[in-house]
């Protein structure tokens, strides 16, 4: 408990509004009418369906398997029948649709045959990683990076510190707070399990000062092996790089990963899920979600993954009103969603109903430099803004656009109301696109050169074989006749096609 604390640069002190939801006991959400499970709820390649429409599935059964290394399987979250596999709206900032598996629950909620791993300490760390992967566990903090990848990195190089991140820095969200208060034992056991899986020397659980009850709950359970740290409230302390800086004083190198400085970080939710997966054999099928904002009864819910957002909001007395928006995630980084039929996925931590979103028009930037002072990544948000607007990608890279964590601090303080983060997102997307185009162009160039070489070679060969000329001419006439007849045939066919087309139209 004598760890020297540091502070990360920039950051904000925002009113947290956590009192809206963090005092009430979480309730288990009743089964919805249908469960929509997107095949991609994580960063990486989407899973591949293993079931057909009409199949019966049981709770916890794998219905889509992982493809590739950076991917996790999807499990049925309740027992029922598959009624559709197709494109549905998913949490996506552009409102796009993505492939999903839809289950109609039968109401029995029967568990699939699951088996637990007793006494994890005797299990090989690698086997433990496999168990965690098969349970479909991803980072529950928000990004949704498959957990086993981080664990594997841990076994491949020496891990000095394992940090369990309980810092819920975003305003309004209290699901981790509630989870710790209600299930501290899961977290402590899960922490020990992950520590075993990565073979870490030190282990820290970090919380913020505004969750004293959670702190006490954990304090009662831990021994000397785990440090429990309370940090002053500051946004965005829950960011991976920021928390590492705050706890260890080390900075993750730009473009690098925490493991490069010997640190692995997991969310408390991930730790709890790992515990359940290992000791009980339960895959990741439910999570804590905060439903808060302008609702009659804001609170935390334990939600089956795939439950529509609307179902959760109804439980808290949500009534549709004009001028309100639904935000998935917190007010700083969450995304605005168009409709409420989208499902809660593994990375959804909060459903926020708000009418006080930023509606004011954008004024020109007055270069006040407030954004520079609050940027936790020590970037120059303003310069990035200018270069993003002039699409000067070279400069954007030079100014480290890709180190931006999109925390929204700059846009929050901007007196001109500029949606800075939106510009950065757009620029990042465009740069990625350009890089892809560049790669394509390089590839095309290679093929063009190869073809030219081939043509030259063929020309040379033809030159050498002047004797077989007469044969060639014959062949050529044959070919021409064939093409001519084929053209005739197609014309006739196309006429026919047109007729049938117009016939069906009528």
């Amino acid at each position, binding site marked *: 408990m004598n760890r020297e604390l540091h502070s990360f640069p920039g950051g904000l002190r925002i009113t947290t509004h956590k009192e809206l939801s963090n005092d009430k006991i979480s309730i288990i959400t009743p089964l919805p009418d249908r469960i929509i499970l997107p095949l991609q709820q994580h960063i990486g390649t989407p899973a591949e369906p293993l079931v057909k429409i009409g199949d019966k599935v049981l709770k916890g059964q794998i219905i889509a398997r992982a493809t590739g290394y950076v991917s996790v399987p999807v499990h049925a979250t309740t027992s029922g029948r598959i009624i559709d596999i197709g494109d549905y709206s998913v949490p996506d900032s552009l409102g796009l649709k993505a492939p999903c598996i839809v289950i109609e629950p039968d109401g029995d909620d029967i568990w699939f045959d699951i088996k637990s791993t007793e006494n994890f300490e005797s299990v090989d760390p690698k086997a433990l990683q496999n168990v965690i992967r098969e349970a479909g566990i991803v980072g529950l903090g928000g990004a949704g990076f498959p957990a086993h990848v981080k664990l594997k990195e841990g076994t491949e190089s020496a891990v000095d510190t394992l940090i369990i991140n309980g810092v819920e820095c975003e305003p309004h969200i209290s699901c981790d707070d509630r989870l710790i208060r209600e299930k501290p034992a899961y977290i402590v056991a899960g922490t020990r399990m992950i520590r075993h899986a990565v073979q870490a020397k030190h282990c820290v659980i970090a919380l913020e000062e505004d969750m004293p009850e959670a702190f006490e709950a954990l304090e009662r359970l831990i021994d000397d092996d785990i440090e429990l740290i309370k940090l002053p409230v500051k946004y965005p302390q829950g960011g991976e790089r920021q928390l590492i800086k705050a706890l260890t004083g080390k900075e993750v190198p730009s473009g690098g990963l925490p493991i490069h400085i010997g640190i692995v970080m997991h969310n408390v939710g991930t730790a709890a899920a790992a515990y359940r997966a290992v000791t009980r054999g339960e895959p990741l099928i439910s999570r804590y979600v905060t439903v808060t904002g302008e609702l009659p009864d804001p609170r935390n819910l334990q939600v089956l993954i795939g439950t529509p957002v609307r179902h959760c909001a109804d439980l808290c007395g949500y009534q549709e009103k004009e001028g309100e928006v639904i935000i998935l995630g917190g007010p700083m980084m969450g995304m605005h969603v168009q409709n409420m039929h989208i499902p809660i996925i593994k990375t959804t931590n909060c459903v926020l109903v708000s009418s006080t979103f930023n509606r004011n028009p954008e004024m020109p930037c007055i270069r006040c430099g407030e954004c520079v002072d609050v940027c936790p990544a020590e970037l120059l948000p303003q310069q990035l803004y200018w270069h993003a607007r002039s699409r000067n990608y070279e400069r954007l890279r030079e100014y480290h656009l890709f180190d931006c964590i999109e925390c929204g601090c700059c846009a929050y303080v901007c007196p001109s109301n500029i949606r800075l983060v939106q510009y950065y997102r757009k620029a990042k997307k465009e740069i990625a696109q350009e890089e892809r185009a560049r790669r*394509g*162009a390089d590839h095309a160039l290679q093929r*063009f050169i190869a073809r030219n070489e081939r043509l030259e070679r063929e020309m040379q060969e033809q030159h050498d074989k002047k004797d077989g000329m007469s044969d060639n001419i014959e062949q050529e006439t044959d070919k021409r006749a064939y093409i001519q007849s*084929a053209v005739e045939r197609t014309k006739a066919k196309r006429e026919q096609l047109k007729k049938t*087309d117009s016939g069906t139209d009528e």
Partner: protein
Amino acid sequence: MSGVLIILLLAAGIGIFIVNNKHPDTRDQERLVDMIDSLLPQTQCEKCGYSGCRPYAEAIVRNQADINQCPPGGQHTIRQLAYLLGRDIKPLNPAYGKSGPKTIAWIDEDICIGCIKCIHACPVDAIAGALQQMHTVIAELCTGCELCIAPCPVDCISMVLTNRAGHRIKLKPETRSAQVSS
């Protein structure tokens, strides 16, 4: 007298200067062509009026072509070329075509007669097939140069939009026939 001498000396000096400067200059030009070529989209579409991207780059260096003749690259390429060459940014010259979202060629396999004419036309060997067999465009390799459209005797090739991953967006039959007829 001394004036004449000095002028002669200077003339000799400048003569040597000019003769010696020739070689580095061609090397510099070569490098500039490489730099321009690396900015072009490499579709090899010949829309600029030259037989490929590199010939166009050479023409720019020789000051025979302007920087706004590349429709596939569009405004973005023009901007980059302007930065590189220190010229003004100008709009795309409409005489060479319009720029739009990336499209790729798509062969209507019901109509294709397998004449391999398009295969010969494709600058990047992105069409697979053999004589009297169905042809198909390999979507990942197609640069959208449109060079295969003109040679097709049955007009079975059309340009279609691609999605983010570079795959064809499926169109409904009506729009498809509309595209074919246009």
